[in-house]
């Protein structure tokens, strides 16, 4: 009797797990062509494979890329606005055993340590599926710095403008 109760309990637990387990799996790998030590301005590509391991189709699939900065004191999610124009992929349905392969290009905007992941959700699924993280570091590159450009860009026209205004009345006074 006790054994039957145990077997029933285990069966119920397994059944419940199977009910809630996400049928999707996501693999994420950096592209082989990525630079070994990327710096600001470089382009990276990450390759993802989203597979339906379940028995039924996954309807209304949407997968998106997420990026977080993990430098000490600068931990934050990164707005992909400038980093990538390819932020999500959708599929009306993903049949059992089928997979969607996607390349996620990215332009490196800022130096730091980053982790990227792909997440996927479906219309009816109860859980979010995510890939493992892919980590990368972006090296600093000397670029145009606004603290040097702004004084010059505003200062020189301003000085010439002042000289122009200063010369006008003098000419007017002289001729009048």
């Amino acid at each position: 009797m006790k054994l039957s109760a145990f077997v029933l309990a285990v069966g119920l637990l397994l059944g419940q797990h199977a009910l809630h387990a996400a049928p999707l799996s996501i693999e994420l790998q950096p592209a082989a062509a990525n630079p070994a030590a990327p710096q600001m301005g470089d382009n990276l590509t990450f390759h993802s494979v989203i597979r339906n391991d379940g028995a039924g189709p996954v309807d209304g699939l949407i997968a998106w890329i997420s990026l977080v900065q993990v430098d000490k004191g600068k931990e934050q999610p990164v707005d992909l606005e400038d980093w990538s124009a390819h932020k999500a992929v959708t599929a009306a349905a993903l049949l059992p055993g089928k997979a969607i392969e996607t390349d996620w290009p990215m332009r490196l905007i800022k130096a730091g340590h980053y982790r990227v992941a792909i997440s996927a959700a479906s219309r009816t699924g109860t859980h979010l599926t995510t890939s493992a993280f892919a980590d990368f570091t972006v090296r600093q590159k000397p670029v145009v710095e606004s603290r040097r450009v702004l004084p010059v860009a505003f200062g020189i026209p301003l000085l010439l403008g002042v000289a122009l205004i200063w010369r006008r009345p003098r000419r007017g006074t002289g001729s009048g």
Partner: protein
Amino acid sequence: MSATTLIARKEAGELLLSPRGLAWLTAVAVALSAFALLLVSNTELSLLDNAQVVYDMAGIVTGLGSLLGLVVGIDAVAGERERGCLVPLLLAPASRSAILLGKLGGVAIAWAVMYALSLPYLWAVGSTGQNMADGMLVCGLLGTPIVLGFGFFGMGLGCWTRSSRTALLTGIVALLVAASPLLLGPGLRQSAVGAMFDAVNPFSAAVDAYDAVIIDSQTIAAQGAHILVAAAWIVLTLVFARSGFAKVTR
């Protein structure tokens, strides 16, 4: 003081002290500022390599300098003629050659001022990168014959055409065609027609020399072919200006 120096100083004074000349310089500075601000405000552009930015800025300085030289050159003869100042100048006790040299000196001073004005911009966008000093040097070395050539070309146009407006329009069209390497991609320039045009275009010679020195870190001494094209340009335009001035004073 010689008549040539006096005229050149008068021309320079017109540029540096008159409202008209100051307005030109202000317009040039605003254009350089707009490009510099574009570089820092646009994420894509702000990630350009410093050498690339110095190269771009040197090209823009040469383009704007050529435009300024063209305008100053046209104004030196056609503008003076329309303001009624040319005949009194020709009646002054100075040889025609001295007057012409003085006018040419005015164009040279205008470029010198413009070049000096551009140096802070080149520093601002390129001081953290490679070859900034060489970039400034090659911009002066190759930019000078190009800009002076356009100044002389403008002077010649001012002599050969009836109005400064016609001269200006013709000069600007010629400048746009010559400066097209700044706008065209490498693909178009490498076509057969593009390569032929590049071979004789002084602006292409300057831009290619900037590319070689600033981006590819070649020496300025290795730019002999480009310097030769630029030198040919200044000689040809000088002859053009001289013959035009001889026609005016005939």
